[in-house]
């Protein structure tokens, strides 16, 4: 038996005989030399010998050895007329593909002959070779020929099958070389072929073609539906050989369902109805008792079922089917077959994104969490993580993040990094409470520090810097986390950075006094890598600014040989420069150079997208939502903000803000968390200002008389008008302001016919708590004639000088006698800080540059409030101009927004102010942001302007 000779040849080189790798290589090299000499020998080898040696070469190749000869012999074999020689020749060429062009020419020639031979066996071999090699040269040679073979009437079924898959391969390799044409419609009709093997191959081909040419192949939908319908409704014996363990044609069903996923739901109601019927039948069959206990039966049945579910999810149009699909997957989640649990988790992931079924998917959360905890198989646990991530929303984020964190403690190393990223994304995306966010990220570092990539820890720092409401908490938390005897270096980085910025917020507690903070960080210093130590040195110099009392200690450290003479040039340079800086710089310079990091620029685009998505009228809860969503979004979407990533090479390098200036943002960065802050301040401001406009106190003197004019806030944006009026008295105003000086004409009109006697109006500056030590406003006036005749008017001139910025307006106390009674009126004089505004025109570029410079949280004040007046653009513009600032047109990228700029002049200082007002017409709300170099100025201007809309 000649076949056994091949066997013997292989037996000779079988690894089983070789004791070591070296021995195997030696044996194989000997064999290769032998074959090479046979091929090159003078004596022509007969077909059988060639076949034997080629087969040996294939085996040697399988064992992992390079084969660089034998191709020519293989081409000789496949050109032979003998079937067995042709077969092994083609096999060799298919396995050991070679790009030698001369060789390919010979091969193509042989293939061409075989395709033309009309011998179905030879044609099959040739088509196999084309499909397996699938090179561009072959596509060039045969892309025209293969479609003809496929649709020719007299082609045998087995050849048709091969031709379909061969064409599919050529189309994948070189779609440009496969011309669409007459054959396409005939290919679609192969879906009706008698031979199910042909239908299966044709379905694969059409699915791939339809993905790129949906229009050309859309008639395949109705044919596929009717074919599927015939299979699904057939008795299990109808399809004979294509019934696999009692399931009729499972592979073909799967392929047809895949093909239908290239298209939307059928438009023709009849086709659509038939398809729905098929899908329902498949879902119903899942509930029937199995026809066999063999796993093949359940596999085949469920393969069809999962594909049907995929199609239902793809169509995403029939809520009824979607819910049934979800329930079916829910059953599989608890199935004893691991494979089914795996696939159910995977399918549910796609189902979670459908609006019809998201809620239904969420009901399985406990099962999925349980899978995470109990599945033995990492690939199943991985799917459970994916599904938890997909089903996460605001309602369950805390639970899911907690479960993922606890899973992380024991998670396989292979999937830790992915889980870390997912937790970080979810924690940020759904953070309502930023303390929770900080805790979560610190836990991530504690549990899986090695897997926390730079992006994740950069992000937590960006968020803490941008949100002043979490800074104190963050400082406290990192301080506590650093107490652990062994903590991850990433924690040291985060801790170093945050304490360097915000350590002062916890320094009041003796347990975390400056020196304690420093000693804690420095105890980690020597165990850290160079980049972390560089970061810590920056923290130290920041401490010098924050805590003058630890300056000598830190200078000693910087002066030490291990810093000043460190072999690492970066550490050495930092030590030298920081030491020098701490020695020569004055407190003011230190404070400027080592100022707190400005907020990181955020992406405007995602905020706008979010705003556009918001619909419906505003309610209080909407406001909460708006705030929350904004703040979430302000801190970026899932991925770290590219702007901050690119402009800030690394926080450690840019800790001092001395690095390259960040690129200008496309729009002024909206404040983060400013809303809350303003709420707090505005509350306290009104509490401290009992004379706020409209409050009862203004009219203490006239309990009996109705109030006529509330006075006050309408004068913020204008200088002339009636300030006060009752039955006796009318007070009118006319005023002008220039830089820090002003002059106000007050007109007192006696509305009665009786004289006022002892008429003494006295403007009094009212100041805050520090009025004892400082005067913010100087008011000078001359007494007026104490007698005001009935119907007459007297005038009083008040000269005003603004010494420094102030909150509380002066009060005008007026006393007089009318008839027999003594009258006393107190009115707030509308002299507000904005009166000392000088408008400043500036370009968009200047505006944003200054906006960025004023990005410390204290410099910005923001207020989000409901519109009290109709939101009219022109009126708004007039108010901003009346407020005193310049109205800057075409500065804000969003034309609906208003921006302004100006300088507040006081005797002691000039304060640059930038403002931005963003109306939201849908919600009937405004967001007002003020940025000035002085916190009190920002606050006061924001309060004043907020009342105007």
């Amino acid at each position, binding site marked *: 038996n000649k076949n056994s000779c091949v066997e013997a040849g292989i037996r000779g080189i079988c690894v089983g005989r070789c004791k070591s790798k070296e021995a195997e290589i030696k044996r194989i090299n000997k064999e290769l030399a032998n074959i090479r000499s046979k091929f090159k020998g003078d004596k022509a080898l007969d077909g059988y010998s060639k076949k034997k040696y080629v087969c040996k070469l294939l085996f040697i190749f399988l064992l992992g050895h390079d084969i660089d000869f034998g191709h020519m012999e293989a081409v000789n074999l496949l050109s032979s007329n003998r079937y067995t020689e042709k077969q092994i020749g083609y096999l060799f060429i298919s396995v050991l593909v070679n790009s030698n062009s001369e060789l390919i020419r010979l091969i193509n020639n042989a293939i061409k002959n075989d395709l033309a031979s009309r011998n179905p066996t030879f044609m099959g071999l040739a088509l196999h070779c084309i499909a397996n090699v699938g090179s561009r040269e072959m596509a060039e040679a045969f892309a025209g020929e293969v479609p003809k073979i496929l649709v020719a009437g007299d082609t045998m079924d087995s050849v048709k099958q091969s031709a379909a898959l061969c064409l599919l391969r050529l189309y994948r390799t070189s779609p440009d070389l496969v011309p669409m044409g007459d054959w396409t419609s005939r290919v679609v009709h192969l879906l009706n072929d008698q031979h199910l093997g042909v239908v299966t*191959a044709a379905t694969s081909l059409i699915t791939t073609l339809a993905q790129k040419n949906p229009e050309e192949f859309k008639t395949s939908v109705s044919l596929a539906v009717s074919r599927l319908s015939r299979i699904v409704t057939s008795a299990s014996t109808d399809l004979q050989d294509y019934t696999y363990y009692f399931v009729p044609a499972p*592979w073909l069903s799967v392929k047809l369902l895949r093909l239908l996923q290239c298209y939307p739901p059928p438009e023709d109601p009849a086709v659509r109805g038939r398809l729905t019927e098929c899908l329902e039948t498949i879902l119903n069959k899942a509930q029937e008792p199995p026809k066999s206990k063999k796993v*093949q039966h359940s596999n085949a049945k469920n393969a069809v079922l999962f594909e049907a579910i995929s199609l239902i999810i793809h169509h995403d149009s029939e809520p009824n089917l979607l819910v049934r699909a979800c329930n079916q997957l829910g059953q599989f989640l608890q199935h004893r077959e*691991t494979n089914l649990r795996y*696939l159910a988790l995977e399918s549910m992931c796609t189902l979670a994104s459908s609006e019809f079924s998201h809620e239904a998917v969420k009901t399985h959360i406990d099962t999925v969490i349980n899978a995470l905890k109990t599945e033995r198989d990492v690939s199943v646990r991985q799917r459970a993580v994916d599904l938890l991530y997909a089903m996460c929303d605001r309602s369950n984020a805390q639970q899911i993040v907690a479960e993922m964190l606890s899973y992380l403690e024991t998670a396989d190393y292979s999937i830790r990094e992915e889980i870390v990223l997912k937790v970080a994304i979810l924690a940020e995306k759904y953070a309502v409470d930023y303390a929770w966010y900080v805790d979560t990220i610190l836990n991530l570092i504690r549990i899986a520090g090695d897997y926390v990539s730079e992006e994740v820890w950069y992000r937590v720092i960006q968020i803490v810097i941008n949100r002043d409401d979490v800074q104190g908490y963050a400082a406290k938390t990192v301080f506590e986390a650093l107490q652990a005897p062994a903590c991850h270096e990433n924690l040291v980085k985060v801790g170093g950075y945050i304490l360097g910025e915000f350590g002062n917020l916890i320094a009041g507690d003796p347990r975390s006094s400056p020196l304690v903070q420093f000693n804690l960080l420095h105890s980690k210093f020597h165990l850290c890598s160079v980049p972390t130590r560089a970061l810590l040195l920056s923290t130290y110099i920041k401490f010098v600014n924050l805590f003058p009392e630890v300056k000598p200690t830190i200078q000693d450290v910087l002066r030490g040989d291990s810093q000043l003479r460190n072999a690492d040039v970066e550490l050495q340079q930092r030590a030298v420069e920081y030491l020098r800086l701490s020695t020569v710089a004055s407190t003011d310079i230190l404070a400027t150079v080592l100022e707190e990091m400005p907020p990181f620029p955020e992406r405007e685009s995602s905020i706008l997208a979010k705003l556009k998505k918001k619909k419906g009228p505003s309610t209080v809860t909407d406001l909460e939502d708006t705030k929350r969503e904004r703040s979430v979004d302000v801190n970026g979407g899932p991925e770290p903000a590219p702007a901050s990533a690119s402009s800030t090479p690394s926080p450690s390098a840019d800790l001092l803000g001395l690095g390259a200036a960040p690129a200008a943002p496309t729009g002024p960065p909206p404040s983060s968390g400013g809303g809350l802050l303003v709420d707090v301040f505005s509350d306290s401001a009104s509490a401290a200002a009992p004379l706020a406009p409209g409050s009862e106190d203004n009219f203490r003197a006239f309990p009996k008389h109705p109030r006529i004019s509330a006075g006050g806030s309408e004068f913020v944006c204008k200088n002339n008008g009636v300030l006060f009026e009752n039955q006796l008295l009318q007070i009118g105003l006319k005023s002008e302001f220039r830089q820090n000086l002003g002059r106000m004409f007050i007109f007192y009109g006696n509305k009665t016919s009786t004289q006022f006697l002892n008429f003494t109006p006295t403007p009094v500056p009212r100041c805050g708590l520090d009025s004892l030590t400082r005067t913010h406003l100087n008011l000078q006036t001359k007494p007026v004639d104490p007698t005001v005749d009935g119907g007459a008017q007297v005038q009083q001139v008040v000269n005003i000088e603004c010494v420094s910025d102030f909150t509380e307006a002066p009060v005008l106390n007026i006393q007089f006698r009318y008839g027999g009674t003594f009258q006393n009126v107190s009115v707030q004089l509308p002299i507000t800080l904005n009166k000392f505004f000088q408008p400043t025109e500036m370009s968009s570029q200047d505006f944003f540059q200054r906006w960025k410079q004023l990005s410390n949280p204290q410099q910005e004040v923001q207020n989000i409030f409901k519109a009290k007046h109709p939101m009219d653009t022109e009126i708004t513009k007039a108010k901003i101009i009346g407020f005193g600032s310049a109205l800057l047109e075409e500065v804000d990228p969003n034309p609906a927004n208003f921006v302004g700029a100006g300088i507040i002049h006081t005797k002691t200082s000039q304060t640059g102010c930038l403002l931005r007002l963003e109306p939201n017409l849908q919600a009937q709300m405004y967001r007002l942001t003020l940025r000035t170099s002085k916190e009190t100025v920002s606050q006061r201007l924001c309060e004043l302007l907020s009342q105007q809309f």
Partner: protein
Amino acid sequence: MIQAILVFNNHGKPRLVRFYQHFPEEIQQQIVRETFHLVLKRDDNICNFLEGGSLIGGSDYKLIYRHYATLYFVFCVDSSESELGILDLIQVFVETLDKCFENVCELDLIFHMDKVHYILQEVVMGGMVLETNMNEIVAQIEAQNRLEKSEVRQVL
């Protein structure tokens, strides 16, 4: 599409390797080794699917495998294939081998490497499922055997 079909024994020795996407020979060997290490550490009776190794495309590809006695049959597929369908296809392939070799064992794969390839070619062509009907596959193989025998007779 099926990217590769790998069969190796419990020690990682390759017994049948077929790539339907072109990889340099060196990478082919690495893929076999990587795949072996991925499936070897998995217990029996757990899930038959896992994400592909880094060399063959990572998470876009799945490894679907079955473990029979001394041999692992691993199909590396992209997302266009049904996992359970491929699992059944492995079964069809193995059952066909069993029919053709009468109780197939590892040695059959070594000594009849060419035959195993021919059987595989009747099941998978250019990375696509060609035929799933075992009777049809066996009929094709028997026809091949008859042709071979007739040629042998001619030579004799």
